[in-house]
């Protein structure tokens, strides 16, 4: 198989990472996971900066486990920009081409190209100390891309970028990471990046893969609380029934069972916050929403154009328009009744 | 009481004076002799800058003369030293005198003309020698010979003696023109004028004579 297959066990102090993954050529794997899950450590292991205790990294058919870092043809854009302080921005970006043996002029031409791709052409002659945080990050992106590596490892490439730059770099990445013979591993905290840039996703937690699959599948039907939270979906664990799911405390949630959900086994009910309606506490509203639950408003946070409301009690999230929030007089501590239509709820088999 | 007698002595006196110390202290209980060994010119310098010394024994009269102002009395010469040619043990190159040192291919080292032994060399040998090095002191000359680096070097008899088996000395008549005289004197500032006088006399006396002769010094 071309592309990347890796199986790595490695440790840093008391932390152990134990991961296997494969990224077909021409595709992008997103890596999600909470802080400290081992995402950066995984990239270090792939690029060869951390020696694995066990495992193998196979890239384009070559077993590169024992190959020195510089011959792996793997570029790493780390979390910290780490621009060489003694080189100009241009020469930072020209570093990889020059290391690949290109002449100074050619390498600089290529560097200029990549700099203009990240909209940093005007910064070419600056020193790294003369850049703002986001400018440095953009230059680091250009530097990683300029090497035209076989495998591209990106650790939160869009953090610190302003919206326009983020959009530009996202577009750039979409273009370059689709190259025929290249595969990419993209660490991010933003499901948006995963959705727009990646084919597959793995979710790490405490050094292990807790979820994996095609991005849309995973984000639409997350099986861990973490993924559900970042995917912005509500997730209620319980036992699959014919009509939906029964929670630990006996509550029944009506919903549509996914094809692979088997009644009597563990499952999760999944529904988007936008499907949750909020009513004043008291009588359940008449009409189609069959799942209703009493709750108390815990927090209100704008989320894109809507306000996302989280509740104590059920723990569900609901997205509302600011007008609705105002009309209902919602603020932390107000008791409410939540409702969700069964059609909006899907029930998936759970991992455990 | 217990008193300390500080003696500034030329470095070349290290061995003989250290031996004398024991005998002197045995005879004069309560006096602890302490030496400061350095180059004579350094010692003279230090005395002029206020060193608290009781006795000064110099390797030449020139340096003694620099401290005349600080002397308790007239200096007395207590030993002489004479140049000799140090060669490898058994004299493999068959060197018999100064003339042989001019032979081509022979590595000769001498003292630099600025230092006492070099001045003596000038006086004795003129400028005929073509040394490969003009050393800073006589020990450096000796080292070159014992290390086998030089075939011959002009040093003092005392140096040949202290080197033991490692060199052979070849005396030459011109050396007599450049006899080096070692003066000793008590210093005016001494708080132990009596002990200083006693030590000076001890060095000049039979005990001193004996120890100095043992390491190769000549009589004044």
């Amino acid at each position, binding site marked *: 198989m071309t592309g990347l297959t890796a199986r790595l066990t490695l440790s840093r102090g008391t932390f152990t990472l134990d991961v296997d993954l494969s990224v077909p050529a021409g595709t992008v794997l997103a890596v999600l996971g909470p802080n400290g899950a081992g995402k950066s450590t995984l990239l270090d292991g792939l690029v060869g900066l951390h020696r694995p205790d066990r495992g193998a990294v196979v890239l384009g058919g070559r077993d590169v486990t024992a190959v020195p870092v510089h011959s792996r043809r793997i570029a790493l854009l780390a979390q910290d920009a780490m621009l060489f302080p003694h080189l100009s921005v241009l020469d930072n970006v020209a570093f990889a081409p020059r290391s690949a043996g290109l002449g100074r002029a050619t390498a600089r031409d290529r560097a200029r190209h990549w700099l203009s791709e990240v909209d940093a052409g005007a910064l070419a002659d600056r020193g790294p100390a003369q850049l703002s945080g986001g400018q440095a990050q953009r230059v680091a992106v250009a530097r990683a891309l300029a090497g035209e590596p076989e495998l591209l490892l990106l650790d939160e490439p869009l953090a610190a970028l302003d919206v326009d730059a983020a959009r530009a770099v996202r577009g750039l990445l979409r273009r370059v990471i689709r190259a025929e013979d290249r595969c990419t591993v993209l660490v991010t905290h933003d499901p948006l990046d995963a959705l727009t840039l990646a084919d597959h996703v793995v979710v790490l937690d405490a050094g292990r893969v807790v979820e994996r699959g095609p991005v849309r599948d995973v984000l639409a039907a997350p099986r861990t609380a973490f993924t559900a939270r970042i995917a912005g979906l509500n997730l209620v664990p319980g036992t699959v029934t014919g009509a939906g799911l029964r929670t630990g405390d006996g509550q029944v949630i009506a919903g549509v069972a996914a094809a692979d959900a088997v009644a009597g086994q563990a499952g999760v009910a999944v529904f988007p916050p936008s499907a949750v309606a909020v009513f004043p506490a008291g009588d359940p509203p008449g009409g189609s929403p069959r799942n209703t639950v009493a709750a108390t408003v815990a927090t209100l946070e704008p989320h894109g154009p809507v306000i996302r409301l989280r509740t104590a009690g059920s723990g569900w999230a609901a997205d509302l328009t600011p007008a609705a929030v105002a009309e209902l007089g919602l603020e932390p501590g107000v008791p409410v009744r939540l409702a969700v239509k069964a059609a909006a709820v899907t029930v998936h088999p759970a991992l455990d | 009481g217990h008193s300390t007698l500080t003696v500034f002595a030329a*470095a070349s006196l290290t061995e003989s004076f250290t031996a004398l110390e024991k005998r002197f202290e045995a005879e004069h209980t309560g006096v602890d002799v*302490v030496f400061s060994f350095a180059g004579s010119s350094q010692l003279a310098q230090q005395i002029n800058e206020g060193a608290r010394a009781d006795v000064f024994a110099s390797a030449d009269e020139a340096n003694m003369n620099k401290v005349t102002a600080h002397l308790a009395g007239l200096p007395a010469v207590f030993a002489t030293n004479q140049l000799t040619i140090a060669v490898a043990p058994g004299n493999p190159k068959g060197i018999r005198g100064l003339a042989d040192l001019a032979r081509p291919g022979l590595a000769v080292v001498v003292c630099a003309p600025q230092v006492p032994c070099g001045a003596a060399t000038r006086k004795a040998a003129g400028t005929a020698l073509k040394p490969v090095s003009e050393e800073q002191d006589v020990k450096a000359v000796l080292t070159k010979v014992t290390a086998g680096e030089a075939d011959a070097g002009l040093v003092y008899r005392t140096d040949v003696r202290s080197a033991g088996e490692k060199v052979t000395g070849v005396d030459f008549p011109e050396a007599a023109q450049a006899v080096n005289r070692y003066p000793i004197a008590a210093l005016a500032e001494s708080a132990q004028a009596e002990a200083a006088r006693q030590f000076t006399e001890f060095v000049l006396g039979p005990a001193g004579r004996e120890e100095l002769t043992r390491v190769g010094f000549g009589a004044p």
Partner: protein
Amino acid sequence: MPRLLWVPAACALALVVLPVVGLVLRTDLARLPELVVAPAALSALELSLTTAAMSTVTCVILGVPLAVVLARARGRAVRFLRAVVLLPLVLPPVVGGLALLYLLGRNGFLGYALDAATGVRLPFTTAAVVIAQTFVAMPFLVVSLEGALRSAGTGYERVAATLGARPWTVFRRVTLPLLLPALGSGVVLSFARALGEFGATITFAGSLQGVTRTLPLEVYAQSESDVDSAVAVALLLVVVAILVIALARPRALEGVR
């Protein structure tokens, strides 16, 4: 690290190690124990270790602040001072000793004042040894620290200031700890330089057994009568120095980062 670097590195090591090996081979090791227990050697060793330790401490107490001032203060004057600090480095030690004598001797303007005021005369005392060693060793500490301070930059010090740390706290809790690895090298360099100091000591402090005759001076005195035993004593010095440095350079100084 390129493998090729091992070639010049090995040459450098050879240049350092081979002569010493040659020396050891030519030394009559059988006589070593006897020489080591000789009271003169022992007292010289003790004196050397105490004075070198004292002058290293003095170097640290005076040199660290000087390095910080030179690295952090700005202005023309500082650039000039930076060059001045190198003076003892280039002065032949004997001349350095002479300079000290001219300053602190009976006729020196400071020495005269000191004598007149307190009756203290520094030359030819153990204090003089420490002063001579400090004089020659100080630039080693200052120069190595200054380089480290400069390349470390002021980032963490600025962060500390924003956290409310006054300059003295910044110095004590940030600058100094971050300087430890470089301080380690600096201390080693200046201790070694102090330990091996000869010319300035013999000129300024003389060579009195037990008072100012340090081990290098003892080696010199020995060499007047017996070069071999002088070499043996020198080897003793080397062994002791290496031991002291190895023991006194704990982990902390080797760079915690």
